[in-house]
Structure formats: structure tokens, C-alpha cells
């Protein structure tokens, strides 16, 4: 039988083509970013880069590496993420279990959405003012606090969206057993939504580790390995920024190598977390 062409077939075809185009754009952008970082960064990526701190003359193209920034970034971002998690998880669970459908709940959501949209430099400036007020200098602690502030709305709202997907029948089943709201939140909802929770944490971690502006004033920068909460700490985004603004090609290449390291760090941590989630995921009720 000859195939008939309906208008609906045509509109489906158009949609399919649009989807293919947007898919291609996404893949190409990703590919181009990875290609740029790889092609410019790989030649400069030596063992020294990840095992040594900058020596004298490093920023002129002489020896050394960015171990200070790698460790600094890991400490800053994990510190900030853990701190943010301590507040996000209870907030997100509270929004679902205690203040569901209340005016308060929607106000908090609105506030978090606004906070999500605030540029990170504003967080940096805000953190800096707070630090001045309490007499804290640019330090690892200051950076962690500011990153926690930056990550908090992202993590909370991402978790909130995940928690809202908890099937109503599941919460009802748990409530019928006589659980308290706290037990419902921490023992049932968290178990059910753990994959999404991890995604929320990763999203916030990725934002934190990649952000330069918020740590610029608050964590400062140093060529030393971070050894105290109250001393400045280096970070990879700032390492990229500083090296890129030096007028020597060797140093600029190292900026790309630093970016490559940053990208791999995030990739590595994502993969590890996914593997952990994959193991925990099997108890989730579909």
C-alpha cells in the first residue's frame, strides 16, 4: 500500500529534524571544548604539573606545577559541598514533609530560586564583607563558607525537585505503618531518592569547584599547599585565570593543562559517585 503523507507526519518529521539539530549542537559544543582543552593542554601536562607546587619563576615558564591549586580546589569544593549538604538535605526534606503546600514552603522555594540566579561574584563580595566583619582574612575557611553559600540554593532546589518525585503511594504506605515525619524523611524518602540526591550534590559540587569569582577574595591564592583553615588556599579556576593572563605562551599552555586537570577531576568524581549510586539504586521502587 502506498504510504500517505499526512500533515501530522510532516510535523513529526520537522520535530525530529529539530531534535537532531539540537543534539548535534550540544555534542559539537562539548566536543569542541574537550578538543580545545585537550589539544592545548595535553602538551603541557607533565607529571610535574600535578606533583609539584609553583617554584620561583614558574609564572615565567620555569619549573613547578599546580599541586597547590589541585589540593586547594578539592578542599574548597568538598568542604563547601559537605557544609552545604548539612543544610540542604534537612531543608529539602523539611519542605516536602512538614511544609508541603504551605505558603511558607513556596516562599522558601522562591527565595532559593532567586539565590540560585545570583552571580557568583556577588557571593564572593558578600562573603568578603562578612569575613571582614568577623575579622577573618582570605583563607581556606572563608572560601569554604562562601562556596557553601553558593552551593546551598542549587543543592537544596535540586534535591527538592527530586524529593517531590517521591510517589505519593510510597509516603502513604510508610505513614500507614506509623512512621513519624522525620523517619519518613530520612529513612524512606532518602532511600527512595538517593540517585537523584547524589546528582544534586554533584551538580552543586561541580558548580563549586569550577567557580573562580566567589573564591577570588575569600580564599585568596597562594603558591603553597593549603595547610591551615585560616591560611589562603589556591584553586584551579584561579590558576587557569592567572596563568592565562601571563603573556608567555608556555604559561598559557599550562593554563589549558590546568583546565584539563579540573575537567578530569570533575569527570572522575562524577563517575565514582555514579558507580556508588548504581549499587544503591537497586532498592528504589520504580
Amino acid at each position, binding site marked *: 500500500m502506498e504510504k500517505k503523507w499526512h500533515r501530522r507526519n510532516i510535523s513529526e518529521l520537522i520535530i525530529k529534524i529539530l531534535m537532531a539539530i539540537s543534539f548535534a549542537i550540544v555534542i559539537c559544543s562539548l566536543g569542541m571544548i574537550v578538543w580545545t582543552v585537550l589539544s592545548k593542554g595535553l602538551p603541557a601536562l607533565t607529571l610535574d604539573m600535578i606533583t609539584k607546587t609553583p617554584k620561583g619563576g614558574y609564572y615565567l615558564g620555569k619549573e613547578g606545577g599546580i599541586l597547590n591549586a589541585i589540593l586547594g580546589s578539592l578542599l574548597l569544593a568538598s568542604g563547601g559541598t559537605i557544609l552545604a549538604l548539612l543544610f540542604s538535605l534537612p531543608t529539602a526534606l523539611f519542605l516536602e514533609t512538614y511544609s508541603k*503546600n504551605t505558603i511558607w514552603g513556596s516562599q522558601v522555594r522562591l527565595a532559593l530560586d532567586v539565590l540560585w540566579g545570583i552571580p557568583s561574584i556577588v557571593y564572593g563580595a558578600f562573603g568578603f564583607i562578612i569575613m571582614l566583619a568577623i575579622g577573618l582574612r582570605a583563607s581556606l575557611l572563608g572560601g569554604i563558607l562562601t562556596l557553601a553559600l553558593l552551593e546551598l540554593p542549587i543543592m537544596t532546589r535540586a534535591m527538592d525537585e527530586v524529593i517531590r518525585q517521591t*510517589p505519593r503511594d*510510597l509516603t*502513604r504506605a510508610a*505513614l*500507614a505503618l*506509623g512512621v513519624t515525619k522525620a523517619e519518613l524523611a530520612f529513612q524512606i524518602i532518602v532511600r527512595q531518592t538517593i540517585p537523584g540526591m547524589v546528582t544534586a550534590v554533584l551538580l552543586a559540587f561541580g558548580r563549586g569547584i569550577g567557580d573562580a569569582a566567589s573564591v577570588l577574595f575569600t580564599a585568596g591564592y597562594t603558591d603553597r599547599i593549603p595547610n591551615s583553615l585560616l591560611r589562603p588556599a589556591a584553586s584551579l579556576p584561579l590558576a587557569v585565570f592567572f596563568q592565562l593572563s601571563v603573556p608567555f605562551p608556555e604559561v598559557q599552555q599550562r593554563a589549558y593543562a590546568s583546565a584539563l586537570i579540573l575537567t578530569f577531576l570533575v569527570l572522575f568524581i562524577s563517575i565514582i559517585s555514579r558507580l556508588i549510586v548504581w549499587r544503591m539504586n537497586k532498592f*528504589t*521502587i520504580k
Partner: protein
Amino acid sequence: MEPHIQIKNVNAYYKNTQALKNINIQIPRQQITVIMGPSGCGKTTLLRSLNRFLELDEGTQLQGKILIDNQNIYDRSAEVIDIRKRVGLLAQSPYPLPMSIFENIAYGIKIHNIKDSKKDIEKTVQHYLELAGLWEEVRDRLHTPAGELSVGQQQRLCLARGLAIEPEIILGDEPTSALDPISAQHIEKRLIELKHLYTIVIVTHTLRQAKRLADYVIFMYMGEVVEAGRAEDVFLHPKQERTQAYLDGIF
């Protein structure tokens, strides 16, 4: 024998509509009471008022008293967690907790501190899985996810889970309507076996199921109890015209 549950002057509202109108009935101890009636007659609302589930929905309101062993569960001093421990619920479609089969049963035992030692908990889990007729099918895979069971098995798991917290009353909200005929039969059989231990209240919209299970029947229509009484009386000699009409399949 003294009734287990007494419902006195209960009116329930869902926003502006009245879902229950002046309900006054008594539910006998250790028998199966079936609440039947056409869709939207308020039978599920009545059932959900017995474990304080009504208040989970926004804008619901209940007036009147519901006494379980002469204790008003809507009293200010009544603790909702204790009430839900005493009054178990078998939902329309089974929903296991996101845990292993074993943990699904053990969880309730743990939160209510019914058993302490690991060994006692293991024994109790086995006991209730046997009572729900599921033990033989799952004994070799107790620690696999409960979500992997078939729907019929899941409903028996939910039954075992509910029984494990030692309730006095079991509510069933059309507990077989999502199941295949064989699983449904399985659940009905369990309920009949269990009625000498528990007071069972079932909502159903299938008349045949009501006839198979009921010792005591409550017939509801448009938010009111039209007729309530012993099953043989209501089914064979209904006093109300509307009951007769329902039994004849006119609704």
C-alpha cells in the same frame, strides 16, 4: 460482644463538599466488616477516617467521634503514630518500601521497638511472611529488593509488613482490585484466616467479593450509611429499598 470501633455522629468534608453525613455505626470485633456502595459514596473516606488518613489531604475536615476500644482517636491527646500502629492499612495497590524483602517487614518492627535482638527480628519476619503466605516463595531471596516481586507477591508482602507491627485492626482499601484473580483469591483467603485474630474492615465495590468475605456489612450511598447489619440479614433480607436496588445491580 462489645463493638471494637464505634463511629459517632461523624461528618466529613472535603473542601466544600460533604463526604460523610452523620455516620453512626459500630464495627464488631474480630470479624470481617465490608463497606460497600457505588463509586463516590464515601466508603473510602469512611475507611480513611479510621487511621487518621483523611487529614493527609489538604482541606479535609472531620467532626464527631471515632472510638476504638472506647478511646476517641480524634481526641487531642491521641497520638497519630500510635493509632496507625494499632490500625494497619492494606492499600489498593501494593507499595513496598525501598528496601529488601526482609527489611520491609523488619522496618516496622524496629521503629515501634517491638523486638530488639537480631534473632527475634529474624524469627518475627519469618512468622509474618508465613502468615501472609509468602515465606515459601521468598525464603531464598530475603535480601533482594522488594520491588522485584510480582504485584501479587508485593500485596502479600504489604500484608505481612502491616501485620508485623501487631495491629488490632486491618483496613483494606479495595485490596485486591489491582491484582490478578489468583493473587486476589490468595489475599481473600488470608483475610478469612486472619479474622479470628484481627478486626478487619474492607472497602470493596464488587458485590461478589463482599458476599464472599463479609460477616458484617455496611452499605453506603451518597455519603450516608443506608443500612448496616449482619451479612446474611443485609444480603438476604435488606430493609431498605436502596440496598435491595444495589443488590439487584441497579446502581
